[in-house]
């Protein structure tokens, strides 16, 4: 405070103008058995992007949920524009201009895009009837701003996850908000949509809106943010000006060490072909896909969202019917008509959407992990709890899962830790062929490199692994070979040794 005296009058005026728009002080929040936040303080200035960083389970989402009235803190205060305020419900938060774009989608799948955007404040005409004309017009206005390719009357459940995320973002723009919190908004967005989102954020910033931005992607943090606050185990580790620090500095603050960037060991000679796909086609989703996976090999599948990567994986796993082509496992043609067949043939798929496809949210961590291999953990229909516990213990350890106990319902885990349960559920199967779809979505930088190492180790144990990802660094980090997909076609195949980022970008854009 003593340094204030040395400021010039001009600087002081500026400082006053930049006085915090929002301030959280001494926020503590406990859940049964967990101290999620321990005396955390945090502030956001007018027109600032303040990034919130921390490992999975550090308390980022919880802090923001306290701010948005979703959770009630045990203690602490909130000031908005210098005034102490109480925020007891999401509605109250909204009324005060605080908007949270949730990490987990919170949309009503049966309703239209427009209804979802305006939920709780639908424009009405006489007798309280919804004015569909005004509703759709207003929604279209917001959607235009986001440059999306779907219509206001589309059913949300029919949209891709990326587009659902855009609807979630659109909701935040309905009112002129004072503070917008983005909790990992880009986890499932394509690059094109990311650009739009960043434009939107820049626009909000210009209007003086305070923005909190949570992400595990360092490049985004460093392009967008003005300041960075690092949380660790529910405590603030420090707030830094973005321009005074770098990735390594932040990472050390976050996980207490630097990231191990050492080059990975050269893969041993791959074994025989485990999975072979010949001329696989499915409607207009993808056509004539042929590739093979060898034991001991990690193959990356890279392409834009919508290029057909997930659909190929789901077809191999028996969730979609193919209209042409052949799938061979260990050389023999197989007919896979559903996941049980696939699992019997030793194929495992860790799906991309943890909440919808990966987890039974109300079930505990251990039971979720063993759900993919109930036959292996039971004898004559009787569950062997010891075997289940062994799987849980092994993968909770290998993935450094942060959960109060195995009994905790996965619903109560942080997003990244939920993702770890999904991974554990499928890595634990020890299949012949392992397909992981966006394996590190929502996972912090430290665990990410551990998971990459784990995937390579599994390959070294003789599993053929297919990694689907829209993150280039990830594909480059884990793959021995890379399949580039463009519009449902296999555009090119690269050996990891001689791939360049440029060549990859060209291949997935059809150049």
């Amino acid at each position, binding site marked *: 405070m003593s340094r204030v005296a040395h400021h010039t009058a001009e600087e002081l005026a500026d400082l006053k103008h930049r*006085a*915090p728009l929002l*301030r959280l*002080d*001494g*926020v503590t929040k*406990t*859940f*049964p058995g967990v101290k999620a936040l321990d*005396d955390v*303080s945090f502030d956001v200035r007018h027109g600032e992007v303040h990034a919130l960083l921390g490992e999975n389970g550090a308390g980022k989402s919880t802090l923001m949920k*306290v701010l948005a009235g979703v959770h*009630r*803190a*045990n*203690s*602490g*205060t*909130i*000031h908005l524009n*210098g*005034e*102490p*305020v*109480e*925020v*007891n*419900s999401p*509605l*109250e938060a909204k*009324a005060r201009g605080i908007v949270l774009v949730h990490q987990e989608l919170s949309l009503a799948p049966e309703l239209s895009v427009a209804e979802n955007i305006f939920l709780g404040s639908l424009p009405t005409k006489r007798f309280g009837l919804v004015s569909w004309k005004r509703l759709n017009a207003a929604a279209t206005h917001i959607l235009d701003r986001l440059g999306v390719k779907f219509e206001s009357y589309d059913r949300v459940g029919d949209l891709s996850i990326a587009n659902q995320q855009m609807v979630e973002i659109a909701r935040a723009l309905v009112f002129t908000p004072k503070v917008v919190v983005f909790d990992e908004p880009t986890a499932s967005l394509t690059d094109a949509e990311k650009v739009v989102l960043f434009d939107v954020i820049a626009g909000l910033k210009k209007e003086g809106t305070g923005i909190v931005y949570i992400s595990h992607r360092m490049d985004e943090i460093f392009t967008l943010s003005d300041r960075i606050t690092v949380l660790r185990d529910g405590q603030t580790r420090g707030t830094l000006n973005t321009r005074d620090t770098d990735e390594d500095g932040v990472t050390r603050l976050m996980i207490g060490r630097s990231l191990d960037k050492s080059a990975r060991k050269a893969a041993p000679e791959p074994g025989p072909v485990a999975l072979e796909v010949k001329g696989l086609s499915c409607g207009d989703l993808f056509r004539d896909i042929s590739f093979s996976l060898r034991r001991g090999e990690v193959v990356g599948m890279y392409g834009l969202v919508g290029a057909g990567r997930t659909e190929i994986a789901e077809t191999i796993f028996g*969730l979609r019917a193919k209209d042409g082509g052949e799938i061979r496992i260990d050389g023999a043609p197989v007919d896979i008509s*559903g*996941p*049980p067949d*696939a*699992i019997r043939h030793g194929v495992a*798929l860790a*799906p991309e959407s943890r909440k*919808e*496809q*990966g*987890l*039974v*949210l*109300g*079930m505990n961590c251990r*039971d979720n992990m*063993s*759900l*993919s291999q*109930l*036959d292996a*953990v*039971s004898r004559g*229909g*009787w*569950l062997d709890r010891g075997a289940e516990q062994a799987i849980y213990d092994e993968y909770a350890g290998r993935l450094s899962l942060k959960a109060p106990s195995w009994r905790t319902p996965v619903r109560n885990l942080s997003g990244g830790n939920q993702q770890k349960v999904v991974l554990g*559920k499928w890595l634990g199967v020890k299949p012949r062929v392992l397909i992981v779809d966006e394996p590190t979505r929502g996972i912090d930088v430290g665990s990410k490199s551990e998971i990459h190492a784990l995937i390579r180790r599994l390959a070294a144990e003789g599993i053929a692994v297919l990694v689907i990802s829209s993150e280039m660094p990830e594909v480059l980090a884990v793959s021995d070979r890379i399949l580039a997909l463009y519009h449902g076609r296999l555009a090119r195949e690269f050996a990891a040794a001689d791939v360049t980022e440029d060549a990859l970008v060209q291949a997935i854009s059809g150049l």
Partner: protein
Amino acid sequence: MTKLDIQSGQAAPRLGVPDRDALRETLQKQGILIAFALFLVGFSLMSDRFASWDNVSTVFRQVSIIGTMALGVTVVVITGNLDLSVGSLLSFATVLVVDLHDQIGPAPAILVMFAATLLIGCVNGLLVGYGRLNSLIVTLGMLSAIQGLTLIYSGGQNVDIADQEGTWFAVFGRGFLLGLAVPTLIFLGLAVAFHVMLTRTSFGRRVFAVGGNPTASAFSGVRRARVVFSAYVLSAFTTACAAVILGSRVMGSQNNVGQGYELLVLSGVILGGASLLGGSGSIPKTVIGVLILGFIQNGLLLMGYPYYAQWLVTWVVIILAVWLDVASKRGAFFTRTS
């Protein structure tokens, strides 16, 4: 770190109340037990006969039919479906077993009745499981279909067993073993078996998974149709067991004995805290839910209220239970609107 509010100079409002969480969690988990205990204490204070061994064992015997049926229905509810056909299925099964008793003898009668009842369960299971039809519509339709079937079978006549003293069939409804009524033993024995099945077998795990998240279960290789099908067969099985108890106790049957039982059974299951959305529920809690219904009925009778008072009180208790559940989840007894 200073807590002084430099900006406004005002004392800032505190954000919440500590330690409400612990209370809420206990309420949420043990709410049904607490309510049960309160009931017992309340009734024993109001009537000194209430807490007697005689009375308690009477209540157990009385709830044994509904309780037995509730075991199978609990499994169906955990898969995220409903079974409203159990009431008329009970009528059908009881009429069948009683009528056949004198014609082909008790053992064959029981066998035929089980086969016919399970077959109807299979139809429910096929339609809801494999046909993916809405369970409410399927089982509501089945409710009236079975009513028709029962009347066609009996020609509208009530049936009874001629030699009520001389048949060993009487043991299921009227017998005692080690001082306990056989119906109570059947109910509690099946409850233990179902509890073990739900918590210790891979089938039980699949039941919870299918109800909790059908999509994720499919991705995990769980065959939803098969699990739902089995749940309906189990529901028919427990109803068949209840029909044996009922037929044997009454030694006769009207065409509509089971009328309204589907709602009583479902009330017990819901009181036990199973969610109609699926994915949650437990046998011990269902047993307690059913006992609450039984003790309400019994307590009111002891206090001299007419038997139909229990319908009203039961409704109030169910609303209270559901409300308590919702309230403990949201942490307030009313939603505040701002």
